[in-house]
């Protein structure tokens, strides 16, 4: 029963491939958004560290993978790994700054660093294409066999597979002593320190891991769309990721998946039905959810199943 419940989202995701062959681009977008939300969940949901600049890692991953593809190394999987490594490196370098400042100030430092990277990418047009985006990205077929096709079949299966693997890894992570210690820090940093948890070091580790995850998500976007642009680094991207996560429910991993799917589908459906005023309805939904539900959609789901 429990296993069936865990398998359900993935069965739905695979079923969607067959049931909605015409919706694959949207489904890929959901998978990538879910991975980004998942990376935020590790940091915000589990370690309790809120960031407003997570798009820095997403965008960095996107540009790294994109530039690799543009410069003649279009092998996708190594591209993902390199993007993850570079994003993690940025995380490692910035973690001390971000952790130094403490709560509100730390939050603003993440925002500031994110904005700085955005500006840097904007100015480094020789490398990034500036405001016009990175042109001429060429990604080779996955495993040398599966080309990124117009229907988005490869893109979706590839994104889904990466999401799945990283989800399993995340699950392993949050259930491990390390993951437990992150939750402990979120729940009570005072007590966490008193049982011998090196709080800052663990938070820094979570920050680096989340950075790598976000880097992979960004790289996936760049590879599947063969394009990278500044908005991958934008504050909006960070905020949207947080919205998805809060919408789905923090600290459950599944919340990230559900939130990303719900937000993307709602956004897509509403903007299709009303290209000019979809924000109104999306806004109403967000306001209502914030007023009514605690713990996001996962919270609501749990309350329903408990009843």
């Amino acid at each position: 029963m429990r296993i069936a419940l865990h398998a359900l989202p993935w069965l739905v995701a695979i079923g969607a491939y067959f049931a909605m062959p015409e919706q694959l681009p949207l489904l890929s977008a959901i998978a990538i958004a879910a991975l980004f939300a998942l990376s935020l969940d590790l940091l915000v949901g589990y370690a309790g560290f809120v960031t407003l600049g997570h798009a820095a890692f997403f965008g960095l991953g996107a540009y790294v993978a994109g530039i690799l593809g543009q410069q003649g190394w279009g092998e996708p999987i190594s591209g993902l790994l390199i993007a993850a490594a570079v994003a993690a490196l940025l995380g490692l370098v910035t973690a001390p700054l971000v952790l130094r400042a403490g709560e509100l100030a730390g939050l603003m430092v993440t925002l500031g660093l994110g904005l700085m990277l955005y500006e840097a990418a904007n100015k480094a047009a020789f490398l990034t294409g500036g405001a016009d985006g990175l042109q001429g990205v060429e990604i080779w077929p996955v495993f040398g066999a599966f080309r990124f096709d117009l229907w988005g079949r490869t893109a979706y299966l590839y994104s889904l597979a990466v999401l799945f693997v990283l989800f399993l890894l995340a699950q392993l992570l949050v259930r491990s002593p390390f993951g437990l210690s992150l939750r402990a820090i979120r729940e009570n940093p005072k007590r966490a320190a008193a049982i011998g948890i090196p709080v800052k070091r663990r938070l820094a580790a979570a920050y680096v891991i989340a950075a790598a995850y976000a880097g992979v998500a960004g790289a996936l976007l760049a590879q599947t769309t063969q394009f990278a642009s500044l908005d991958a680094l934008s504050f909006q991207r960070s905020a949207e990721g947080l919205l998805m996560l809060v919408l789905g429910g923090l600290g459950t991993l599944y919340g990230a998946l559900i939130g990303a799917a719900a937000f993307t589908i709602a956004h897509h459906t509403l903007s299709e039905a009303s290209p000019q005023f979809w924000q109104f309805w999306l806004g109403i939904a967000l306001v209502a959810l914030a007023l009514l539900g605690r713990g996001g959609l996962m919270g609501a789901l749990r309350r329903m199943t408990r009843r």
Partner: protein
Amino acid sequence: MITRRALALATTATLAAPRLVQAQSGNFRIGLILPMTGPFASTGRQVDAGIKAWLRRNGESVAGRRIEILLRDDTGTQPDVTRRLAQELVVRERVKALAGFGLTPLALAAAPIATEAKVPMVVMAAATSVIVQRSPFILRTSFTLPQATAPMAQWAAANGIRNVATLVTDFAPGLDAERAFKNRFTAAGGRIALELRTPLRNPDYAPFLQRVRDAAPEALFIFVPSGEGAALMKQFAERGLAQAGIRVIGTGDVLDDDILNEMGDVTLGAITSHHYSAAHDSAENRAFLESYAQVLPNVRPNFMAVGGFDGMHLIAEALKRTNGNDDGERLVAAAKGLSWTSPRGPITIDANTRDIVQDIYIRRAERRDGQIWNIEFDRIPQVRDEG
């Protein structure tokens, strides 16, 4: 009434299951991707209304096929969304043409989809030279910045202006404009005193204009995206640049018809070069204005609207030529070399480059009947993009 029904149809179609869509395959579906929200929403609204004006004027049936527009919002800032929407429209909605594309990065992101899906992609707003080279299926009915800029440089040089500062927005169209102006102007013996680039988002023009004032050129050449001109012109006036003897010249984007009237007296006398003015004196334009007023009352159509109007016309003419056949390669072939008289004047789709060839007008902002208009006073016929 007709448009409303088309809209209703479009809405039901999007909500209904894919099978239903196939049952309506007699329709010729066009996927229209525009920034309908966000900072560039006014561009989307204008193009959309231009298309509706064409449909209102010419009916929704072309060569026995009913035209159906599927409008999507890409918010203007997310190229990956533009690309995904293009992909979806092609794959799921089976559109036979893509259209719209408010900004250069958005158009560039969607170009590979057009190539791969082999559907014509009609660029109605974005204006960087390079766009049409990105796919053999791209056709353009807007303009290019070098196209609109070079005549301005020439006019300035010919009218005794020797020393110019340039101020452009820091993205591809701006750089295109900067380069085109500089090349043509220096070739004609002019000198560029100062080159400034302002950020695309959150620009504050005051410090830039202060620098211009310090440099004291004879004229300031400006390119900023549609809508931004107001803030710039106000600052120009407030800084007292006019009193300091600096004239404003620029491309028509700066004195966008959409907001020209509200920009007020600060614009009077500014010289710009562009391919369309709502004040263009022709029967075609009067008819266009009339149809447009029925779609969007109280809004003056600008060059974006005419790009949409002509883009729709281009698709329709191509479809007529193929006798309703919606094969992408045939449609593009049919579109190549088409010429007609648009509300802006005579235009041609170049058979080789698929880019637009059109007259560029030199205009002066003047008050007529209580409103401010860009009054055309000189014309450079059939200008090509030279970027």
